[in-house]
Structure formats: C-alpha cells, structure tokens
C-alpha cells in the first residue's frame, strides 16, 4: 500500500488547486468571449454539459503529448516512436515522418513474443494463407475452425482445468461472461481495484455489487458474513449465489493478490471465485502457469479462471477455463460466443505456437529461458530502483512496477525527459488511478537484455534527480563495496 507523506499531499493538492482555478478562469473567458460566436447546435443539448469534460479540456489536453504516442515498428524491447508536433498548444498533434529509436518500458510484452518470432511467425503466415484473415462468422454458425478447438484444449491443459472457451477480445470476455453467470438476485463481491471490464460486466449483469478492500481477506470475510446473514436488500431473501472476483496481478499496483487466504475464506462460506489472470498468465510462476502456480494454489479450488492472450502471448483475445458443465453452459448462453465474430485464425495460431514454446513442446528450451529471464529481469530492476531511492510498488516476481510521482507537474516532466533520452515510459494519472497518486508504470519483458535494463536505470535515475521523485533515502554503499572500490584504486 502507498503511504502518502503529508508534505507531498499538500503540494499535490495545491498544484491541482491552481490548475483548477486556472481552468475555471479560462472557461469563464471562453464563455464571455465566445458567446458571440454562433452556436451551431441550434436547440440540441451539447455532447458534454458543463463540468463533465472539465478534466479533459483543462488538465489532460495540456499534457496530451505524453499519451497515445504512435510507434512505427513492432512493440519489441527497442522500438521506433513517431515524433509529433503541435501548432496550437497541444490541442491537436500532427505526425511527422521522423522516428526515434527508444527503449520500450511500457508495452505488455512479458515473454517477448511481440515482434516476429522465429518459431511463431512462419506458422502464423502459413495459417493466414490457409484460413485467411477472418472467418466472417460467429463461432456457432460457421466460425469454428480446427484451430479454435485445438487452442481450447491446449489452454485448458496449460491452465489445469477440464475445459476452456475462447473469445476474440479480453475486454469482451469479462463484459459478456459475468452477465451469463449471474443475474438479478445474486451478489458479486469484487476487489476495489478491479479493472473496468469487470466493473462493466458486473453492472451489465443486473446483480447486486459490493466492493471489498483491496487484497484484504479479513474485510472480505466480514462482508461475506454480513451479506449472507442479511440476504438480499429490502426483501431479505437468501442470495441465489455469490461470486467473488479478484485479479492475479493488479496492473496499476503491480501487486499479486492474496490468493491462498481469499480462496480459504471463499471455500468456508461456499462462495464461487472468479480469477482474472490478464497480467499474470504466462508471466509468473515457474512454468508460466500464473499466480496459482506461484502461490501454491490448486487450480481446482478456483471455480473460473479467465485470462487474455494480449500480454504474454503477443496476440489478441481472451479465454475462460472452468469445469466442463460451466463451459457447456457458456457455449449455449454467452452472447460473445453467439454474436461476435470468431477470433482471427492467425491470432489463434500465434497463441498455439507461443504456448508450445512455453511448454517446451517445440523441441527447444526457449520457453524456460524466457520465463527465467523475465523473473530475473523484474527482480533486478525492482531492487535497483528501490536502492536508488524511488518509491516502487508491487511484489517480488511481478513484472509490473509503478514508480510514484504524485505531483501533476512531474507527470509530463518525467515522461518528456525520458523520451528525450530515448527511453519510453508510461505515465498514468486520474482517472485510472486516484487523483493524488499519479505514477509511472514500468513493464519488464523477457526480451530486455541486462544492458538494456542498465541503460534504462541510468536514464530513470538521472531524470528522477531532475524531477525530484526520489522520495526515499538512497541506500549507502555497503562497506564491502567500498573496500572493493578502494582495491581497484
């Protein structure tokens, strides 16, 4: 958890206050000066009324060049970032032809499958020529190919569940599955920091939604006891079913979830569990099988396991793995299976090949090397950052590490300075994080070599000094190291 020092909180609030006041002044001037301009809405209500888009217009647009940077090569360890310029103070950005090669610390490329791979790409191109780009049909009509069936079996085997079902987009997986499982009269308890797709799915299902404190099994237990004892609101009838939704790695915190305790609580109260492993499948665990393997939880204890193929497998799409009955039920009722175009066959082949590499079924040990590399890289990077005095969140072994910035002015400063020195980082602010807790988020990949990481650390340290985000004291050099240095002299 993040501890916000009082002085930093005060200065951050002061900065936001000044920005807010300036924004209101500019709005006032716009109303006074532009009211004469003809309003061509003619009786229609505007798309955004009043303060609905105040944040976008007055705060986000100022630093718009830090987000949405286009690239013109594969999102590998080094990539080409397209340079943009603006003629009207960041309101619109124009592309140029120039690109600069930067170190990629922002893409979700945990196992390095993002660029053309020697095993995967030839097979993908073969599949493209055989099955063409898309099936133009939904899975239940004429969109199921041999590849889809093969991948479903492979995913089920990899994750450790009896059966699996595929979808073409990770976001849609959550939004369309949760309404198919629960409906009015059921209760969904979700972690307070769950992803937007889970929130949308829970709202779309019509069930009652309650939130428990992030990663706190004791609060979950209290909430469960209270809810089961009181039943549905107003009628006090018993709940039909209760589902607890948690994530493997929380992408904005870099933390692993407290899986063993939460599963124990859920089993005690006969509650179903839904685990979203979007960021953790393929990236953590000794053989890449996710948080269950890392934390020693049996996959049969989790009722439904969901994951995406975008992050560790370099493709697109999502899956759900569960028991045969649940998967059969979903195949008959899930709207994403019945109405959405099936996953593109080359993307399916990419996942099949990536899984074969990870499992070692391609005949080499590249998979095991990649998994060891990402673990080593994440732990090295995190410990070095902490030694330099940055406030880094997240647990060991997690490839996602947020560095706290807090102050709104430091967001563009950090991002632009790093880009000038050819390191591309991702900065996140409100509304993806709480208002006062802006951060820069680093995603480590197995494609990064030790030299890449050292260069990244150098640049981040220099920029960190300039911007002033080393909130913790720098660890002094240990006496042994000092003796070694003296010996060299």
């Amino acid at each position: 958890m993040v501890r916000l020092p009082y002085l930093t909180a005060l200065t951050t609030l002061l900065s936001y206050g000044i920005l807010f006041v300036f924004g209101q002044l500019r709005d006032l001037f716009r109303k006074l000066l532009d009211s004469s301009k003809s309003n061509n809405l003619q009786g229609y209500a505007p798309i955004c009324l009043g303060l609905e888009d105040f944040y976008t217009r007055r705060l986000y647009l100022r630093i718009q060049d830090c987000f949405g940077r286009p690239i013109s090569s594969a999102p590998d360890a080094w990539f080409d970032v397209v340079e943009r310029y603006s003629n009207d103070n960041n309101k619109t950005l124009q592309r140029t032809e120039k690109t600069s090669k930067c170190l990629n610390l922002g893409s979700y490329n945990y196992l390095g499958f993002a660029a053309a791979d020697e095993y995967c790409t030839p097979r993908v191109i073969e599949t493209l020529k055989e099955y063409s780009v898309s099936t133009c049909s939904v899975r239940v009509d004429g969109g199921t190919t041999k590849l889809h069936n093969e991948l479903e079996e492979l995913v089920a085997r990899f994750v450790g569940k009896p059966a699996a079902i595929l979808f073409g987009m990770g976001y849609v997986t959550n939004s369309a599955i949760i309404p198919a499982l629960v409906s009015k009269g059921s209760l969904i308890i979700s972690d307070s920091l769950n992803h937007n797709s889970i929130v949308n799915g829970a709202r779309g299902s019509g069930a009652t939604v309650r939130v428990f404190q992030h990663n706190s099994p004791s609060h979950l237990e209290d909430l469960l006891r209270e809810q089961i004892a009181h039943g549905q609101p107003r009628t006090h009838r018993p709940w039909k079913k209760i589902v607890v939704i948690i994530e493997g790695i929380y992408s904005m915190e870099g933390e692993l979830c407290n899986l063993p305790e939460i599963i124990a609580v859920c089993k005690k109260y006969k509650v179903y569990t839904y685990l979203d492993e979007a960021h953790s499948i393929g990236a953590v665990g000794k053989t890449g099988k996710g948080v269950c393997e890392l934390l020693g939880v049996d996959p049969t204890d989790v009722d439904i396991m969901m994951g995406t193929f975008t992050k560790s497998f370099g493709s697109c799409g999502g899956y759900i793995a569960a028991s045969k009955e649940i998967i059969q039920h979903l195949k008959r009722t899930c709207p994403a299976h019945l109405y959405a175009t099936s996953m593109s066959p080359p993307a399916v082949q990419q996942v099949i090949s990536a899984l074969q590499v990870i499992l070692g079924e391609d005949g080499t040990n590249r998979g095991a090397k990649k998994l060891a590399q990402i673990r080593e890289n994440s732990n090295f990077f995190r410990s070095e950052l902490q030694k330099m005095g940055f406030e880094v969140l997240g647990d060991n072994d997690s490839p996602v590490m947020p560095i706290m910035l807090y102050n709104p002015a430091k967001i563009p400063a950090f991002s632009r300075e790093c880009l000038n020195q050819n390191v591309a980082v991702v900065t996140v602010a409100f509304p993806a994080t709480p208002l006062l807790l802006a951060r820069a988020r680093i995603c480590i990949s197995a494609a990064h070599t030790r030299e890449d990481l050292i260069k990244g650390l150098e640049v981040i340290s220099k920029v960190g000094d300039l911007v002033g985000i080393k909130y913790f004291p720098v660890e002094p050099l240990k006496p042994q190291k000092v003796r070694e240095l003296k010996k060299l002299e």
Partner: protein
Amino acid sequence: MASELMNVTANALVWISSTLDAPTRAVFFGVPIDGHLVVEVLLVVVILFQLTRKSYKPPKKPLSEKEIDELCDDWVPEPLTPQISEEMIVEPPTLESAAGPHAIVDGKEVVNFASANYLGLIGNENITDSCVGALEKYGVGSCGPRGFYGTIDVHLDCETKIAKFLGTPDSILYSYGISTIFSVIPAFCKKGDIIVADEGVHWAVQNGLYLSRSTVVYFKHNDMKSLEATLEKVTSRSKHPEKVRRYIVAEAIYQNSGQIAPLDEIVKLKEKYLFRIILDESHSFGVLGNSGRGLAEYCGVPIEKIDIITAGMGNALATDGGFCTGSMRVVDHQRLSSSGYVFSASLPPYLASAAIAAVNYLEANSSVLSDLRANIATLLNELSNVPGLVVTSHSLSPIIFLKLKKSTGSDKTDMHLLDSIANQVLKEDSVLIVTTKRSNLDKCPLPIGLRLFVSASHSEADLLKAAASLKRVASLVLS
C-alpha cells in the same frame, strides 16, 4: 335529585372560580401569586415530567456472532450453472479451410452460406499480401492500449482511410466488432438522457443501452409511424430540451430480420424533433450504395446529417475490429471516454492493414457490388416458393431471412424444426446454412428463422443448388 345535582355542581363551580380569582395570598420575590398561577405551574411541571420520560421503543438487538455462523452454515447456494442434458449439447460444424464460398467442413466440401463474406474478400491476394507484410514487420498483437504505445501507424492510416472513404472528418478504430456499439452508446448517453431505439436491435446494442443508464423507449421494428408516435410522446413529456441529450438508435440492416431502415424518413423525423442518430452499419458498409459507402449513399442522405455511425469490420471487409465515425467532436470525445477504446488493447496491426487493403479494393472494383446484388436477386427469386417458409428480409439485404409460414406455437419446437432442416441440408446436400441462435440474455422479440449470407463470389450454380436443396428438405420436414 336533579336540583340537588345542580346545586352541587353550582357550588363546585363557585368554589373553583373563587379559588382562581382569589386575591393575592402571597407575594413571592415581588411576584404576586394568584390562584391560577399555581394551576399553570402544575401543568408545566407535568409536561416537563412527561417529556423527560423515555418513550417505549422495542430494543434493537444486532445478530450475535453465533447466529451469523448458523445463518452462514444454513445457506445453500444455487449451482453456478444449471445442469445441461446430453441432448442439449450441439457442436457447431468445424471448418478445415478458409470460410470462402466453398469450404471444407468435417472432411467434405460444402457450399458455404454461413459467412458474412459479402464482397468475397476471403482469400483475396492483395489482402493476404498486405497482412504478410504487416505480420513480418509488427508481429501479431499490439501489446498495449491506444494510450500507452499501442497506437501503431497502420491504425492512424486506417482511421484516415475510412474517414476519407466515407467523407467524414475522422474516425476511430475499435479492436472488436461487437465492442464498438456497446462502448459508443455509454460514452454519449448518460443517466437522464432519452434514447428511442428499435425493438429488433441485436444484443450488443441492447447491452450498450442498458449500460448507459438512460431512459430507453422502444418503437415497433422498422415502423416509421410507431417511431413518430414515440418521438411525439417522449418530447411532450420532456422538460429541458437544452439539457437533455436525445438519441435515436437504429441499425442500417437489422441482423435479426434483414430489414433495411428507411434513413431518409428517420432523418426527417430527427430534424423535426431535435434528436441525434446513432446508426449501426455493420452489415451495410461495403454493401449498400453505388460505391459501397453504406445506407447514407443508398438513401441519398448527406453523411453530415448522421451524427454517429458505427460498424463492425467483420462482414464485408473480411477482417476484424470495428470503427466509429462522425464529426470531429464525436470522434475526439470517444478517445478518452469510450471504455472499449481506453481500457483495451488496440487492434492487431495486421487486421488494420487488411482493412486498408479491403477498402482500397472496394474503391478500385465497385463492380463487385453489382455482382452481389445480382446474386441476392437470383437467390430471392429461387427462394420465393419454398414450401413452409417465407422470405422476410428486404430485397437488397445480403442476409436472407426465412421464417416458418405457420409457427407451431412454441419457440422450442420451431427451433427444433429449423435445426433439423439446416442439419439435413448440410448432411445430404452439402450446403451450410444457419438458424438464428438466441442467448437467454437477449430480449429481442423478433421471430427466429433460417439465415443465408450471400456473397459476391458465389456462383450461380451454388445459388441454385442451395435453393433446390432447401426446397426439397423443407417439403420433407414441414409437410
């Protein structure tokens, strides 16, 4: 007796009045104490006494830990999913080749009417070449959302290409067909807004309407009189036209029935009642109009009059993903507030380059549209006298919809009959057609039926074979 009672009462009254009017008996701290003052003080004391007494409330006892334990032990949850019997499990046909007009299903070659491959672009050389180039350059996935280095130059090129093709200022790409509409609607419609939607819209639109939390009113499927009456009713009730946003949601070609929305009438109504239009052109982009620019070109409506157009690219363009286009304000607003755009990884770059190649092909070869129209006309002609089934789709719709002339009364038996027709057609004559599948979450009230997706690359022999097979099997099953 009466006189004695009267005497007693008279005496009592005289005594009371004398006490009350008695002259000052005492002077207490300078205040003369009259008789009535004593009574008043007594009354005040009684009132204060009552006020200070606790009123009777039944005591609130919270549940004790032991009671909560008992309740938790007693509670039995429903199973997560209901039991499914063996007969309800149906495996869809498995393709072993590309989903072109002739495909290999379960080992044998069939004529494929189940893919929405309207322009016959599956297997097109140009598209395959551009995809191979993109795969070698960019890999498969884009590994990030649009805001965090997931924007690749092909995405920007694709957006500009589509906007130029349609004649709008800009467009925005989404990474999956159905997520387009259910992200666009909640981005523009909030609680308190009014939406008038067609009752036959498909599930993704219904989900978007539900997530938007606005007031939704449905009008009868493709019935302009019903739309006008609904608009009249809704505007007469609404109080603040300048503060409440109002939208009409319709599809160009309805997926559930094959009808085409009369856009010119809708635009007239929208201008009269001051509504905005959200039009889903998934099945009409690349199909309707002289050059394939969609329903606006077909109806002769200038594209600026339609506020928001969305489309999935998984149909005519033979790729995946979706786009939304409109004025600059409409497109810019979605870049920060549309959840399917902001919180999801971007479209894989090879699919974006396939879209660019498909639009280029359509621009260069608009004769493929007349091929498609000829095929639809031929097939409709052949299917006009199928025993037991009637065609209910529009004459220009590439989705040909056949429903039972006489429904058996229950949806389940109807479904059973249609399934057996489709299975027999596939097994005996090797023609792949599909029935409407409905999820139990779908609230569409339109009838189910058989669907055939016509493609520009179907040959005349294919169409005749399909029609003959359908006539034969329908007369067997429905006699």
